[in-house]
C-alpha cells in the first residue's frame, strides 16, 4: 500500500506539490488525470526519488517503509517502478545487457542469487513475445533511435521483468499507435494482481478503456482536488478541467 500525506515539494524555489494526499491500496489501479503542468510527473519523480526535488513537508510510505529516506535504487529494490514519460537513451549499452544488469542488481539487493543465462533469456523472450517486441531491438543500445512507441513498450517490458509491487505509468499511452495501445494495455493487465498496485497517469479516456481503473483522481496545482470511480474519467472527458481550474485560481 502506498500512502502519501501532505506532500509539499518545490524545485528551484517553485512550489509544485502543495500538500498532496493520496492512498493506493494493494491490488488497486489508480488513475491520475490533470491539466498540463499540474505536477503529475513531479509526483512520480518524487516517489521514485529523483534528486532535484526538495521535499519541504509530508511523507511517502510504501508498505510502511519511509521512501523519502531511501536512495532511488533502494526504492526500486523495494518495489517501486516508474515507466517514464520520456524514457532515457543509454548509448552503447545493449538493451539485453541493461535488462540483465537491472534484474540482477535488484535480486542482489533482495539477497537472491543472480539469474542464470538460460533463465534470463527465457524470461526476456516470454515478456518480449507478449509485448510484440522484436528480438533485434533487444540487441540495440537501450532506447537509442527507438521510436516513441518502441520506447514506451520497452518500459513495460522492463516492468514485466522486474516485477515491481508499485508501478507508476507516466503517460505510457502517448506515442502509442492503436495496436500498440492494446498490446501494452494487455501487458499491464496481465501484471494486475492483488499484491501489485498501479498509478496510471494519463490525459485520455481511451487508455482507461483498456486498463480499467478502480479509482480516478484529479490533480490540479499540485494537489488531488477530486477523487472518484472510473466514471469520473468519463466526466472529465466530456467537460474538461474547467471546474477544477477554478479551484486552482481560488
Amino acid at each position, binding site marked *: 500500500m502506498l500512502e502519501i500525506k501532505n506532500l509539499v515539494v518545490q524545485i528551484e524555489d517553485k512550489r509544485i506539490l502543495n500538500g498532496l494526499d493520496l492512498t493506493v491500496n494493494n491490488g488497486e489501479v489508480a488513475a491520475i488525470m490533470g491539466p498540463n503542468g499540474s505536477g503529475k510527473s513531479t509526483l512520480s519523480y518524487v516517489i*521514485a*526519488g529523483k534528486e532535484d526535488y526538495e521535499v519541504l513537508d509530508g511523507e511517502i510510505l510504501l508498505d510502511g517503509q519511509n521512501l523519502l529516506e531511501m536512495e532511488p535504487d533502494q526504492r526500486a*529494490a523495494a518495489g*517501486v517502478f516508474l515507466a517514464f514519460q520520456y524514457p*532515457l537513451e543509454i*548509448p*552503447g549499452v545493449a538493451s539485453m545487457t541493461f535488462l540483465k*544488469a537491472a534484474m540482477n542488481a*535488484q535480486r542482489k539487493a533482495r539477497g537472491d542469487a*543472480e539469474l542464470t543465462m538460460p533463465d534470463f533469456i527465457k524470461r526476456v523472450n516470454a515478456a518480449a513475445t507478449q509485448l510484440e517486441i522484436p528480438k533485434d531491438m533487444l540487441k540495440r543500445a537501450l532506447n537509442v533511435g527507438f521510436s516513441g512507441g518502441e520506447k514506451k513498450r520497452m518500459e513495460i517490458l522492463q516492468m514485466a521483468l522486474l516485477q515491481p509491487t508499485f508501478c507508476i505509468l507516466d503517460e505510457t499511452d502517448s506515442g502509442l499507435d492503436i495496436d500498440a495501445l492494446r498490446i501494452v494495455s494487455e501487458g499491464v493487465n496481465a501484471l494486475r494482481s492483488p499484491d501489485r498496485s498501479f498509478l496510471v497517469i494519463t490525459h485520455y479516456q481511451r487508455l482507461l478503456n483498456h486498463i480499467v481503473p478502480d479509482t480516478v483522481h484529479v490533480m490540479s496545482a499540485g494537489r488531488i482536488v477530486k477523487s472518484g470511480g472510473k466514471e469520473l474519467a468519463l466526466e472529465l472527458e466530456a467537460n474538461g478541467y474547467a471546474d477544477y481550474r477554478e479551484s486552482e485560481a481560488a
Partner: protein
Amino acid sequence: MPAVQETIDQVRLIDVDQYKYGFETEVEMEKAPKGLSEDVIRFISAKKGEPEWMLQWRLDAYKRWLTMKEPTWARVSYDKIDYNDIYYYAAPKNNPAPKSLDEVDPEILKTYEKLGIPLREQEILAGVEPRNRVAVDAVFDSVSVATTFKEELKKAGVIFMPISEAIREYPDLVRQYLGSVVPVTDNYFATLNSAVFTDGSFVYVPPGVRCPMELSTYFRINEKNTGQFERTLIIADKGSYVSYLEGCTAPKRDENQLHAAVVELIALDDAEIKYSTVQNWYPGDAEGRGGIYNFVTKRGDCRGKNSVITWTQVETGSAITWKYPSCILRGDNSRGEFYSIAVSNGMQQVDSGTKMIHLGKNTTSRIISKGIAAGRSENTYRGLVSAHRKATGARNFTNCDSLLIGNQCGAHTVPYIESKNASAVFEHEATTSKISEDQMFYCQQRGLSEEEATALIVNGFVKDVLQQLPMEFAVEAQKLISISLEGSVG
C-alpha cells in the same frame, strides 16, 4: 552481465585512493651515479656488456640530446624536470642477470606474484589451456629479471628476449633495425631514451611463422628517483604474425618519476603485428602529488606490402601521458589501426593519439579513440592523418568519442589532416557526451547503484575498443577502467 558485477566487486575492494599496485619491494639495488653524463652512459653500456658500436650510438644520441629542447606543444603542464636529479640505472644487486627463476631474488618473484604476473612456466601450464599461454618478459626498473617460454619459442624460430641480451646475441639483427623507425634524432624524449635506454624486449618472428603464443612484457618501476627508459624492438619478417602485450605499474610516491620509452615495430611483406598496452603507472593522488610522467614514442613501420600493424591501448595510469603510437604505411596495401581507451581521473593529464602516415598506394588506416575524463582531469586526443603525394587510394576512418563524468574535467580533440593526393579519402567523426543526471536517475530507478550505472555506461562506451584486446586482457582492462573511475560519481 557478470563482468560488470566483477568490476563492481573489484571497485569495492580497493582502498580510498584506488591504486592497488602501489606497494614497494625491498631489494638491494645497484645504481648508476645520479644524473646524466657520458660517464653514466658508459656505466650503463658496460653493465650491459655492450659492443662498442652500441656505446657509440648512445653517446651520439646524448650529444644530440644536449642540443635539443623539451617539447611544449602538448596540452599538459608540469614542473620542470631536473634531468640531473634522476638515476638512470637501477638493478637488483645480487644478480642483475639471472639465468633461471631460481636465481631471481625471491622478493622480486613475490612482487610479480602480487601483481598477478605468472613467471613460472609450470604454473602457467598447469591451469590454463595451451592456446591461452602467454610468454612474459619481466622488466624490473632497468633490467629484465625473467623471460618465460624462451626455449619453446626458439623451437618455432621466434626470438623473444631482453633487448640487452639481443644486442649481445643478435647484434646484426638489432643493428639493422634499431632506430630505423624512430631515428635517434626523432624527438627530445626519444633521443634521451636512445642515450640511456636500459631494458625492454626484443622480438623477431621469422618468415612465415605465426608466433605460437601471446608475448608480453611487464614493466615495473620500483626504485625511488629512478627513470625507466625502456626500449622495445619487434620485427615481423615476411608473412609472419605476432601479438604482443605490455603492462606497467609502479609504487605510490609523492615525487614524480619519468618513464620515457621507445617502441619500434617493423612489419615486412604480408606480416602482421598486434601491439596492445595496458598502461597503469601510478597516477598520483587526488591532489595531483606524485605519479609517473609517461613520455613515450611508439611507432610502427608497415615496411612491406600488405602488412598490418594494430595498436590497442588502454591508458588509465600516469600523472601525465604524452604518447602517440603511430603507423608509417610505406608498403602498398598496408594497413594501420589504432584503438585507444584513455581514462583520466583526479588531476591526471592525458595528451594522446596517433599518426597515420600514408606513403604507399591503397593504404588504409582506422582510428577509434575513446576518451573518458572524470574528476579534474584533462584528456586530449591529438591525431594526424596524412597522405603523401604517391599515396594513391589512401583511406582513413577516424572516430573520436569523449565521455565526461562530472563538471570539472575537460575533453579536447585536436585532429590534423594533410592530404597531398587528391584520391585520398579521410573520414572523421567525433562526439562528446556526458553521463547526464537524468541517465543516472533512470538507471538507479531500475535498481542499479551509481557505481553500477557508471560502470555499465562506461563499459558500453568503450566496448568497441575492448573487443580488440586479447580475451584475457579485455576482462582485466575492463576492471581497471572501473577502478580508475572509482570516486568519480556522487
